[in-house]
């Protein structure tokens, strides 16, 4: 999809690795940063981000745009994001298909939407508004979810497809989230991959999860498991190679170990795309 070149393989920039990455010691092609961690006035976070940006392509990945909330879009947040984007010139900007606040309050989580026509119209209008405000297309990511709303009238992939077409946005396909949600809701993850429009996929996410017995939890605290690697291989066969990002938010290993796991994604993608 235009505007989302295949940057290769990257990792999420996290505080334990700030110093090493700022000095160029991450053996990856690009970095993704959590937008909100850098929407500060100054100090170390912004200094690190500027240094990282001098050495690598950077993608801004947000968790608080709250695209699905019935609250008004947070204009101050969008102003801050636009200012950060002007300074950093990210390769692109992404956020999630979710809502994370209600009544002016923030839940600091990625809450699921009912997949209804009303929700679709609502989210599509907000994605369009955000894209207009930022002057660029964004990528919208599928989340891990733990419940299904009884009044949903379509599948998650049908909703994502309709959203991408209506709002003319791209999709960030989180392969681990597909796997987690498939297990939690009992659907076939291959059906999800078949269902999303391949040309709209601009990026993949890979991560680990935890098995709680009754459900899988998207914890980003383990290496990517074999099942998710297999699903990633399937995804690349369908879409071709796309920029791929390894996420790790807890039990963060050394930078070398993390980069080695990310490079495995490059090998898997090359093999799958061949």
């Amino acid at each position: 999809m235009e505007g989302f070149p295949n940057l290769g393989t990257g990792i999420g920039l996290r505080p334990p690795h700030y110093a090493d990455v700022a000095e160029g010691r991450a053996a990856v092609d690009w970095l993704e940063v959590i937008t909100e961690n850098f929407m500060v006035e100054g100090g170390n976070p912004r200094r690190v981000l500027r240094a990282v940006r001098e050495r690598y392509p950077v993608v801004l990945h947000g968790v608080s745009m709250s695209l699905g909330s019935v609250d008004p879009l947070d204009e101050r947040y969008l102003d801050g994001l636009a200012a950060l984007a002007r300074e950093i010139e990210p390769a692109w900007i992404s956020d999630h298909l979710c809502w994370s606040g209600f009544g002016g309050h923030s839940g600091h989580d990625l809450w699921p939407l009912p997949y209804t026509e009303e929700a679709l119209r609502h989210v599509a209008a907000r994605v369009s508004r955000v894209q207009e405000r930022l002057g660029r297309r964004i990528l919208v990511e599928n989340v891990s979810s733990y419940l299904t709303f009884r009044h949903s009238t379509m599948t998650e992939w049908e909703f994502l497809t309709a959203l991408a077409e209506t709002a003319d946005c791209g999709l960030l396909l989180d392969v681990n989230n597909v796997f987690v949600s498939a297990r939690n809701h009992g659907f076939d993850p291959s059906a999800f991959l078949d269902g999303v429009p391949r040309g709209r996929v601009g990026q993949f996410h890979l991560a680990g999860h935890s098995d709680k017995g009754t459900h899988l939890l998207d914890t980003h605290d383990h290496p990517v498991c074999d099942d998710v690697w297999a699903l990633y291989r399937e995804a690349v066969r369908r879409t071709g190679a796309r920029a791929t990002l390894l996420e790790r938010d807890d039990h963060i290993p050394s930078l070398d170990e993390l980069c080695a796991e990310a490079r495995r994604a490059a090998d898997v993608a090359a093999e799958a795309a061949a």
Partner: protein
Amino acid sequence: MKLSDTQARFYGLVTARDDVAAIAARDPEARAAVEEMVIGDARLSAVDRLDVYAAMYFVRIHDVLMEELPRTAAALGGEAFHGVVTDYLQACRPSHPSLREAGARLPAFLATHPCAVERPWLAELARLERARLEVFDGPDAAPASIAALRAVPPERFGALRFRLIPSHRLLDNRFAIAPTWRAGDANGAPPRAAPETMIVWRRDSAVFHRAADADEAPWLPRLADARGALFADLCAALGEKLPDEAAAARAFELVARWAAEELIVVVD
């Protein structure tokens, strides 16, 4: 079911003081509302599925607050801190997009919480921990250097106007909090009652704090003002209790200290 009704019901249940199972157990209407909204199955009921989100909401914020205010949490102990966070999230629901702001109102909340009766200094300890976080992400500035100040001709020094760098906080404490902060755990003696002005600031990526001495304490609020304060006024104020020459020497000493600490900028 409308999207706004779905989100209102979901938000109300997931952020309630009690978990969804407890609410559903005592309120059949609430259980029916959950089951009307969410599909359950043999592995997880509708209530259990909402509780996954309720647990994540609380734990995520609790853990961030514990990480950001480790000394406050240690002074309270795990169970009491859990209780404080529970009360806090009901009284002061997060409203900022950044999780780092979730604890912004916790120090003020602690001052009014029942746990403050036995530990009246706890809110000040929390305020110091919070201030250190805030200045870490505060705006950058070019502090006045000693070398640059030495280059100013003596006759022009009186007209120099200084102010504090933007990444600072002034805290008026009723207790001597610094030793408790340094001890870093709950086992030390409680801080003694001793009113003090404390300054917290950032130099590059390092955050510092210290109590102001008697000469500088009255000046720090004036230096915090955007207009800053004149060196000549500092000399004059010190001159009220010191001979002129000693007052000027003391004023130079204070400015040299602030410059060495990278605490001040020169106002044009």
